[in-house]
């Protein structure tokens, strides 16, 4: 997956997690929590959705890497390079 594809996937996940938020103006370099109402359970939703969709495993110590869109894409790019979404 390209970083752009990863970004689209994260946006889709965020749209499910925070359906009341307008994500069109999301700033990639600013932490999600500074732009959206996200709590720890929501972050776990991101981790779980990535696991379900791509079988990508994110260890707990790496959770801080998911703070912003930019850091998330940077972190996931090498890990999802050869991954495709699993059809369910």
């Amino acid at each position, binding site marked *: 997956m390209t970083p752009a594809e990863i970004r689209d996937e994260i946006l889709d996940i965020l749209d*499910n*997690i*925070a*359906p*009341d938020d307008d994500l069109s103006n999301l700033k990639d370099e600013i932490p999600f929590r500074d732009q959206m*109402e996200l709590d720890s*359970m929501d972050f*776990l*939703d991101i981790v*779980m959705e990535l*696991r*379900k969709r791509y079988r990508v495993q994110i260890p707990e110590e790496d959770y801080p890497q998911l703070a912003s869109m930019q850091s998330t894409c940077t972190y996931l790019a090498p890990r999802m390079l050869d991954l495709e979404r699993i059809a*369910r």
Partner: protein
Amino acid sequence: MIAGVAPRDLPDHQRVVITGLGLTSPNGNTWEAYREGLLTGRSGVREYEIRYIGQTLAGVCDFDPLKYQSRKESRRGTRAGGIAIYCARGAVEHSGIDWDNTDRSRVGIYIGVTEHGNVETENEIYEIKGYDYDTAYWSHHHNPRTVANNPAGEVALSLGVVGPHYTIGAACAAGNAGIIQGVQMLRLGDCDLALAGGVSESIHTFGIFAGFKSQGALAVHTDPTRASRPFDMDRNGIVVSEGGCLFVLERLSDARARKAQIYGEILGYAMNTDATDFVLPNPDRQAECMGLALRRAHLAPSDIDIVSTHATGTASGDSQECIALRKVFDGSGGTRFNNTKSFIGHTMGAAGALELAGNLASFQDRTCHATINVDVLDPDCALPGLILNEPQELSHANTILNNSFGMLGINSVVIVGRYT
């Protein structure tokens, strides 16, 4: 209740009154719509499909979950929580209380449930089946969604209530049990306002349908609206339904101080236990429960205008309740009997509260709604005052006795009177 003192002779701070209610029923999402459905014979039962069971019948609510919740809140919580929030916030609005200036530490939330957690557990097991039962895919939402206090806790979050909140697990007696808990906590001074009643999300768990089916107690009928037919010769079981009803309960002194409209007064209640069987009812204990509630209310059976029966449409349960009713009400010529499940099915943990709410409107319209779907009355259920198929206008409607019984032999009775 204080022994020896009639409820209406108690001081105002010991008298508990209903000052509001919110509900969702398979045939109405407001008290007015629900009552109109009960008086016009509108059923809330429809065809329904659920995993592993396939096509069946159920009472399904169509309230707008986004009326009081954001989409995120609705997604985060449970169906029972969403129902409870809809009912609680509707009840607060209906009560007319100045909520912004209400001390939230003095509000108690007491919600009866038949069961809670089965829906989410079934969903998670179904989900991880797609991952070879790898529990790494089990949701972190499972525990907060399945803790037994969930529906009450979701109400507390939604309304900012910081007083006590919990559910009361009481099988299908739970709606009455929630009300009774609210009354007791008000009398103990544990809260100043109680949100009390019951909710059910049970139609979203296939297990409850499968269990009743295995028990030979799941209703089937070619016409869904005719499937729930307590007291009819051809009744063949329960229609499982979802729903909820929460009352605002206050001490009479508080209600009068804020000039609240009072819809009824809790005059008596009782709970007891059969201790004889897991599922089969015991009419002796049911009769004793009604008798205890009547004694506490300082009322004779003939003082009761309407008995809201529990009957669910099973062969045994209906006739056993009628044995109990005859024991208590033999000779009470003016007492009328009806059954609300014939319209909406069995709303499980909500049943006691919803069925009371359906009848509570009779204090205003002086009409007893009927038991519908009785084509041929079972002689074992032929109570003298049973209102069949069409509502009946009454010369007066001042007292309701509300029965609600459940598995493991749990019995509950609430008696409500017109406030005078």
